[in-house]
Structure formats: structure tokens, C-alpha cells
């Protein structure tokens, strides 16, 4: 069963505007990390941001921030002031359902940035 769900296969945003990509997950772990990765056309997987589940404060990396709702098991990525170079496939990653299971990736959201 899929334990990391990205409900938006495709999203688009105008340059300089803000977009939010959604992700939900299911894990029995109590202490864990969540990740967003970016995959541009080169196919290189690039770490965008990481959130520690025991921290209530949402992680921020420059124009990228997360909205982490632990009780709801929701982990969305907000991209502010979108740039053309942000166009890519974005993957959410979280622990699997069972304790000790490997990191599981969502199916991805293809982000288009319109000039």
C-alpha cells in the first residue's frame, strides 16, 4: 500500500508567485524525518528541504518552506517567488508504515513555472 501520497500529479505557477505542493504520509514511527526532493530534467535528485518530526517549527530554506502538521501526517512544500529554474518533478519522502522501514517516496508532482 502506498504510504506517501502526493495528490497533485501536476501543478503550474506564474513566475514570482507562490505555489504549495501537498503530501500526506502514514507511519507508526514517533521520531522521524521528512524530505522534499527536486528532480529537474537532468534527472539528478536534489534535496530541497528536511523536516524533523519532533520539531514543531516548520523548516525553511530560502524560498522553500514546509507546513508540517504531525497529527494530520501532512507535509506540504511552499515555494515563494517562483523562478523558472524551479520547474521540476518534486518528490515527498517519508518513513514507511512500519517501524524501521526504509524511506518511501511519493509519485511526484510535476511543477511548471510560466514566465
Amino acid at each position, binding site marked *: 500500500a502506498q504510504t506517501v501520497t502526493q495528490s497533485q500529479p501536476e501543478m503550474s505557477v506564474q513566475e514570482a508567485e507562490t505555489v504549495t505542493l501537498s503530501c500526506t504520509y502514514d507511519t507508526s514511527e514517533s521520531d522521524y*524525518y521528512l*524530505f522534499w*526532493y527536486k528532480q529537474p530534467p537532468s*534527472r*539528478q*535528485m*536534489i*534535496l530541497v528541504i*528536511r523536516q*524533523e518530526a519532533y520539531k514543531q517549527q516548520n523548516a525553511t530554506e530560502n524560498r522553500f518552506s514546509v507546513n508540517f502538521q504531525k497529527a494530520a501526517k501532512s507535509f506540504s512544500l511552499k515555494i515563494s517567488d517562483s523562478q523558472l529554474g524551479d520547474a521540476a518533478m518534486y*518528490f515527498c*519522502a517519508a*518513513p514507511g508504515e512500519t517501524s524501521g522501514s*526504509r*524511506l*518511501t*517516496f*511519493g*509519485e*511526484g508532482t510535476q511543477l511548471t513555472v510560466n514566465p
Partner: protein
Amino acid sequence: SQTIHQWPATLVQPVGSPLSLECTVEGTSNPNLYWYRQAAGRGLQLLFYSVGIGQISSEVPQNLSASRPQDRQFILSSKKLLLSDSGFYLCAWSVRYSGNTIYFGEGSWLTVV
């Protein structure tokens, strides 16, 4: 700094031929190592992971195998490729006990014809 290299970048192989993809990590010791496969337009599927030399865990039954002959070397192999083995293969590593942040290699495109 740590780097990961994976090769070859592109491979076209006939059905039934063998496969060997190689990956090495530099700048760290005792990494966890991973092989992922990505079908076109899809997410990543974990194939194998290793926590040490000779220690391989398989996530998905298939005709692929993995080996870790040295601490920072991870090899993905097959004796006889199938058409369904086509895809984009990614090697990755993580520092043990550090929140599982995974760092990826450049990837290898495999087309089985």
C-alpha cells in the same frame, strides 16, 4: 565533502544479456547504500539497500541482484535482462544514524531492447 559517482550513464542492452551498474561513494565511511529504480514519470522504487560490506537487503523480488564488495562500492547486476528492467537507476547513500537524509548519484538510463 562527500560525492557519489555512478556509471555508466546510459546503457542499451539486448534482452537476456547481463548487467552491471557500479556506484562509489567518496568522502565518508560506513555509509548506507541504496539502489532505486524509477520508471518513466513515476516515483522511486527501492530495490536494494546495504548497511555494510556483504550485507544486502532486497525490497522487491526480481531478477536483479546487488553486491557490496567494498565499504563504498555498490554494484547492481543481472544475469539475464528482461524488457521490464528498462528504467532509470539511481544509486544513493546516507550517513548511518543521521536522519536518513539520502544523497543520490547522477543516475543510469537502462534500455533493454
